[in-house]
């Protein structure tokens, strides 16, 4: 190999690394059908939170915190108090300023008061702006827009999963080859550009290298230039990153090759390539903050002492202000905003633990850690002799699941895992005919739906379709719109008739070896601290959400099940825990499950607050009375929860009787025009790892993820390590998705639902073109202009030996990043009755602010 060839080969390998590193700031975006919440700045978690959001501001022009006007308004209405601000400043090591006096003319005040004055009155910091720009942006903005338009068009064409009438030709060759074969024929491009696109490099790495050279990008600046391109359409780039990592046919090297080749060709066609500045990219100046002199001047003017203060006094005031640069003020406000909630929660959790009810409960309900479960658990405990626990809703069984209809399987587990076991739902013995009827019904409905939609895409068929079905479609549409509740009930009845329920089995023993089942059973019970005191009924309750006309349906389903409904996991886990061989193994490990204890699967519909008990192969028909009582109590708990939720749902009755509330949430669930079917996880703010006795009897407002944990049954900390490195991480991703969607709905959110168009089956566009929307729609976060979700970072509260927690942090980089860099705050205590301590880089310190009046 010649030196030149070797150098070229090395350069191509470096392109791959440069693209990977350039894209670190973008978290992969999953397809919308399994909408997975992620921290959009997940790639920057190795940086302190403040630095990460500053970097996101430079790269994406995105805001990383709410703006000061928001916080000042919250201060004005009492949501943030001066006490919260003082606490926030104290946590930054500025408590001593309380004792330092500053004189300004006749005015005498403390240094802390100076900072508080500037927090309340300082000139607003300019909004972040992108600092890295492409050549086209600088010298031919029309070309930059055309590159975006082409990129969006070809991404949608290639990624389409059956929505379009025609499939992109050559798709099976992978993106780069398929696109390269077609781009040259695109008549919407100038002839000169088409000519250039007719002779493309053979592979995407060569294409990137060649285009960067011709665009004049200086050596060493390639990564920044690639970032400038990635930041133009971060939604598409984030989804392509996911695609490259999971399906491998279309990755960011292909995507960037396409963009750069378009940029080169279109600039050349416009005669602008020669005019491109040498050595691009150009980095814009950072947004200008006021100088210290300007700040002091504004301060004395604001305090009404301008002209009175001496130079020495002004200099002293300037030294105080320097302790808090303007760009950090929003972070101080955020910390105060969070502190107000957190201090209240810590105070709530500091009261003596609830007395453990004597005697064996009638049933134990194990719910997902999802914050919505907190309401169901609280209400169920209040209506009868029930104990509830929290555990990740996949119940420790990571499965690939194929339902009775067959088709594509789904990964029902957190996306942190790759499932190794496949479960197939099949008819129960003797139920084959019923299953066949159900399948035929499903096939007929699917065929009718496909035919209806296909007819709309044909040339003449829409006219015939309108004639043939208009008489029915119009009344149906009117019914769905005017009486969604009644229509939903009618449709449910018709559906049950067309697709009758068929008893099925999941074949758990075939899918899992005995060793696997034994391991999963022991891990699950140990992690949730349920190793003794079993009730006669233990209900494993997954969850899902039934909504209509909602592309974001998966965002309301179970995150621990990969954005799917959780019933299959609950069924599998119940079958495993009912197995005699597994119970024998568990007994040998010190976990004695009484012979009369029976595990049963259920599913909580979070839109309607109904809980369905699943009568599957392990259903014990001899427990009829117990089950009926449980059903009745779950029904009552659900109605009470619906009434509680009505208080927050837009246009819901304010304080309805429970029955009316239940009807109302059912109506919302089946209303195809409802943009607020439920609030999902809006409001989430805390993750509590402790026995239920710590939180029992408290109304946590459905804001806390609750993971049961008993340190006594986890002497080596293995269960806690799993909780902190998996369920906590999923919760933090959810928390960050809500947080960033709220603080910058344009870059990190998905805009208004009302103008969404589903594109290619992978996401939505706001309108008919542009970027794939990354996060949550505005209607998941706000009612009109008012935020319902309070954008705060997660607070984790863990009741466990402190030494154990510190050991786990020391050996897990992910925990060092989350807790050390301020992405998640951590409070801990060893046992009931002790004070909560705050984790800091110096170790655990007393939680301040608990006693401070607000």
């Amino acid at each position, binding site marked *: 190999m010649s030196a030149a060839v*070797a150098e070229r*080969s090395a350069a191509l390998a470096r392109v791959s690394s440069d693209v990977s*590193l350039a894209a670190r700031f973008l978290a992969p975006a999953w397809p919308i059908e399994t909408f997975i919440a992620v921290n959009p700045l997940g790639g920057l978690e190795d940086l302190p939170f403040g630095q990460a959001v500053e970097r996101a501001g430079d790269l994406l022009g995105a805001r990383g915190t709410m703006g000061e006007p928001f916080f000042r308004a919250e201060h004005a209405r009492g949501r943030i108090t001066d006490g919260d601000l003082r606490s926030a400043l104290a946590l930054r090591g500025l408590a001593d300023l309380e004792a330092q006096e500053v004189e300004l003319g006749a005015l005498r005040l403390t240094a802390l008061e100076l900072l508080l004055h500037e927090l309340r009155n300082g000139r607003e910091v300019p909004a972040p702006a992108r600092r890295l720009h492409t050549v086209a942006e600088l010298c031919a903005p029309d070309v930059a827009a055309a590159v975006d338009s082409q990129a969006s068009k070809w991404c949608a064409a290639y990624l389409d999963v059956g929505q379009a009438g025609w499939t992109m030709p050559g798709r099976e060759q992978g993106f780069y080859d398929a696109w390269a074969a077609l781009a040259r024929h695109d008549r919407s491009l100038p002839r000169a550009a088409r000519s250039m696109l007719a002779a493309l490099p053979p592979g995407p790495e060569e294409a990137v290298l060649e285009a960067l050279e011709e665009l004049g990008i200086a050596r060493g600046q390639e990564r920044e230039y690639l970032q400038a391109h990635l930041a133009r359409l971060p939604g598409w780039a984030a989804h392509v990153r996911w695609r490259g990592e999971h399906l491998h046919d279309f*990755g960011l*090297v292909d995507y960037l090759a396409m963009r750069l080749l378009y940029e080169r060709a279109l600039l050349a066609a416009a005669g602008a390539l020669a005019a491109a500045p040498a050595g691009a990219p150009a980095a814009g100046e950072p947004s200008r903050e006021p100088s210290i002199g300007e700040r002091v001047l504004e301060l004395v003017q604001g305090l009404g002492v301008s002209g009175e203060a001496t130079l020495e006094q002004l200099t002293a005031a300037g030294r105080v202000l320097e302790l808090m640069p303007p760009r950090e003020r929003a972070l101080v406000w955020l910390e105060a905003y969070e502190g107000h909630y957190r201090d209240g929660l810590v105070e709530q959790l500091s009261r003596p633990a609830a007395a453990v009810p004597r005697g064996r409960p009638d049933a134990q309900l194990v719910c997902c850690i999802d914050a919505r479960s907190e309401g169901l658990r609280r209400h169920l405990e209040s209506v009868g002799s029930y104990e509830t626990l929290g555990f990740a809703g996949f119940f420790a069984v*990571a499965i690939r699941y194929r339902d009775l209809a067959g088709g594509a399987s789904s990964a029902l587990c957190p996306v942190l895992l790759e499932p190794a076991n496949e479960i197939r739902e099949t008819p129960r013995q003797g139920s084959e005919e019923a299953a066949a009827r159900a399948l035929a019904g499903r096939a007929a409905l699917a065929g009718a739906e496909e035919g209806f939609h296909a007819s709309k895409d044909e040339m003449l068929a829409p006219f015939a379709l309108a004639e043939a079905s208009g008489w029915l479609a119009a009344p149906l549409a009117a019914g769905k719109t005017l009486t969604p509740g009644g229509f939903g009930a009618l449709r449910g009845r018709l559906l049950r008739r067309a697709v009758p329920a068929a008893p099925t089995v999941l074949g758990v023993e075939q899918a899992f070896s005995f060793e696997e089942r034994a391991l999963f059973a022991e891990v699950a019970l140990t992690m949730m601290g349920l190793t003794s005191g079993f009730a006669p009924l233990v209900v494993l309750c997954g969850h899902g959400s039934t909504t209509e006309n909602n592309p974001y349906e998966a965002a309301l389903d179970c995150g621990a099940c990969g954005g799917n409904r959780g019933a299959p996991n609950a069924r599998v886990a119940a079958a495993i825990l009912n197995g005699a061989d597994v119970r024998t193994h568990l007994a040998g490990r010190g976990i004695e499950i009484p012979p009369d204890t029976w595990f049963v699967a259920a599913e909580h519909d979070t839109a309607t607050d109904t809980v369905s008990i699943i009568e599957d192969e392990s259903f014990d028909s001899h427990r009829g009375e117990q089950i009926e009582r449980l059903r009745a109590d779950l029904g009552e708990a659900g109605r009470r929860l619906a009434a509680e939720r009505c208080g927050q749902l837009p246009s819901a009755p304010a304080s309805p009787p429970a029955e009316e509330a239940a009807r109302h949430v059912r109506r919302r669930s089946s209303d195809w025009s409802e943009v607020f079917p439920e609030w999902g996880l809006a409001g989430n703010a805390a993750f509590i790892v402790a026995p239920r006795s710590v939180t029992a009897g408290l109304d946590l407002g459905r804001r806390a993820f609750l993971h049961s944990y008993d340190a006594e049954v986890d002497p080596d900390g293995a269960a806690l390590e799993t909780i902190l490195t998996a369920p906590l991480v999923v919760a933090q991703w959810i928390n960050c998705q809500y947080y960033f969607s709220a603080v910058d709905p344009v870059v990190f959110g998905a805009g208004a639902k009302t103008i969404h168009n589903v594109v290619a089956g992978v996401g939505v566009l706001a309108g008919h073109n542009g970027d794939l929307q990354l996060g949550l729609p505005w209607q998941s976060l706000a009612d009109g202009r008012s935020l319902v979700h309070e954008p705060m970072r997660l607070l984790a509260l863990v009741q466990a030996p402190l030494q154990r927690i510190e050991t786990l942090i020391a050996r897990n980089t992910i925990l060092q990043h989350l807790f050390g860099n301020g992405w998640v705050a951590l409070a801990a205590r060893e046992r009931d009755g002790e004070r909560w301590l705050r984790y800091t880089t110096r170790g655990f310190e007393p939680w301040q602010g608990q006693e401070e009046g607000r």
Partner: protein
Amino acid sequence: MSHEGLSKMTKIEVVAAGSLGTAVRDVFKAAGASGFTGVSGVSGLGHGGYHQGRLLFNEGASLELLITVVDDEKVGPLVAGLRALFDESPGVMFVSDVYVSRPEHFR
């Protein structure tokens, strides 16, 4: 030690966070490596302290060992790509001679 009948090639082993696995595999591919072996959930002690091994429910946060074997002409590009990756990401790389019986499988 006799290597009669065997062909000398180069083995490159990389230990990196599972979340970096795709980037490492992409460099392998871009440099022309024909395959790799991956071992997830490896633990160890390095200059950054102890790293926990297999995490029960989080494959991305644990360390991954990726091994590939290439002939000499691909070593330079592959190492160049990996060094660029490790400029900004934690990870280690070991390069050593190795003898294989069926070199055509690695070309």
